């Protein structure tokens, strides 16, 4: 299911943590979109444009439009280089794009936007952004908008997380074990029960997505019943059972604390 995240339009939330970062998966999905011929707009708040484009070849990079909110998002340098209107206006400008054709919009990151914009405003804008095709009368399946939002889970309370969750068509939560990353994908189709799946994966240096069967070394807290376990009573240095003589000797032993009528 991980490889078909972009099959339907709408908002895809990539929830990551400090230990299991999600930017490389975001870049892998962006690469997929670009290879499908889509134009990709990136609202970059957390890394510089050079750093984001690293690892992509020129073919992919030519399809990426990077809206730079990293260098001077709050206009502190007052050089006029910053995007006019700040983060909110930059986000709204993406809603007003007139370029035809399918497009992917990547928000790196939604967490940065959520920390700097009111939650309600951000959610309304996100809703407009991910439903652009329904605003136009003649939307065809090829004219979809995919919105990928990178969200750092630990930074937000349950309220904003819940609201963003309800806006999203797909939620991917990143975790892992034994050095291998996994993605838990929750897929909401309209008027159907949500489906979910856990997929182990790794991202190659060229940002291709490689699916794995499972973690390289699975921990086994319970022994596999098919494999006969070793008998623990072999090679002991002590006896587990008493012989008949030893049993008789044990039974006839008077314990020091036993009360008897013959008090000394």
């Amino acid at each position, binding site marked *: 299911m991980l490889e078909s995240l972009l099959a339907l339009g709408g908002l895809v939330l990539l929830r*990551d943590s*400090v*230990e*299991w*970062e999600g*930017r*490389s998966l975001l*870049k*892998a999905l962006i690469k997929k979109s670009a290879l499908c011929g889509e134009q990709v707009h990136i609202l970059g708040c*957390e*890394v*510089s444009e*050079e*750093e*984001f484009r*690293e*690892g992509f070849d020129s073919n992919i990079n030519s399809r990426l439009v990077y809206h730079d909110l*990293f*260098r*001077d*998002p*709050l206009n*502190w340098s007052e050089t006029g280089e910053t995007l006019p209107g700040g983060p909110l206006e930059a986000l709204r400008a993406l809603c007003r794009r007139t370029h035809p054709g399918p497009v992917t919009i990547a928000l790196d990151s939604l*967490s940065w936007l959520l*920390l*700097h914009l009111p939650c309600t405003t951000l959610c309304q804008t996100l809703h407009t952004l991910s439903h652009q095709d329904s605003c136009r009368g003649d939307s065809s399946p090829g004219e979809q908008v995919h919105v990928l939002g990178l969200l*750092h889970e*630990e*930074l937000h*309370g349950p309220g904003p997380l819940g609201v963003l969750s309800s806006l999203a068509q797909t939620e991917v939560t990143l975790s*892992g074990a034994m*050095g*291998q*990353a996994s993605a838990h994908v929750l897929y909401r189709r309209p008027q159907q029960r949500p489906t979910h799946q856990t997929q182990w994966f*790794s*991202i*190659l*240096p060229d*940002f291709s997505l490689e699916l794995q069967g499972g973690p390289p070394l699975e921990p086994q807290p319970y022994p596999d019943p098919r494999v006969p376990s070793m008998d623990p009573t072999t090679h002991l240095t002590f006896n587990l059972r008493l012989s008949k003589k030893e049993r008789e000797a044990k039974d006839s032993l008077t314990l020091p604390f036993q009360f008897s009528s013959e008090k000394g």
Partner: protein
Amino acid sequence: MFPELNNLLNTTPDQTEQGKLTLLCDAKTDGSFLVHHFLSFYLKANCKVCFVALIQSFSHYNIVGQKLGVSLTTARECGQLVFLEGLKSAVDVFFRPQEEPHPLQFLREANSGNLQPLYEFVQEALKPMDSGEAAWRCPVLLVDDLSVLLSLGVGAVAVLDFIHYCRATVCREWKGNVVALVHDSGDAEDEENDILLNGLGHQSHLILRAEGLATGFCKDVHGQLRILWRRPSEPTAQRDRSLTYQYKIQDKNVSFFAKGMSPAVL
């Protein structure tokens, strides 16, 4: 600097990485030994250092620095070290005309806005010299610590914005490094501090976390250090590396050993 910590981090003053954000944090223990390590490390590496010292006085850091082989006085005099002594200059804010910008301007404001004056101080301190010749290897910003800014009324987002701008300028534009200490409140449920700690964690290339032992205070093992290498935007076929060591702080050195392998218990 502590040679054993250099070995663990696989770095030496001659070959320091550039363009990196290092996050130091401590939980239930005092992680200031990490600050002293990086201060002496970068001075020995011939970097230009801007030290925003909000916790202790200059002489305190100088005394510890001398034990580690660096003289902060000499470094300051020759221009290698720009030292903002928070304890002293905080008072200056109230005794100078309001029009003059001060790096700790936020102390004077009723609802503290942002840390732009502090960022401009750092920018001024570390900007490359116009002469064109590189006297120092790379600029380094060191902050001890960021949690105290929260206590002084600055919001977590404002502190994150400050570090964001420092990263954009010092790390990205000037290929320097930023090192900052944040305390982990642990069970205290300090939401603002958690946002700051996790927010910085997501931006960091290296996280050093000093923790007290779960079993309590011990004479021979003062704590354990967790080291997490991250690559915020590069793919890894193999995930980020994480190591844990225990340590003991001595007079002029910190010794590190694998868990349970302290010489005192072997």
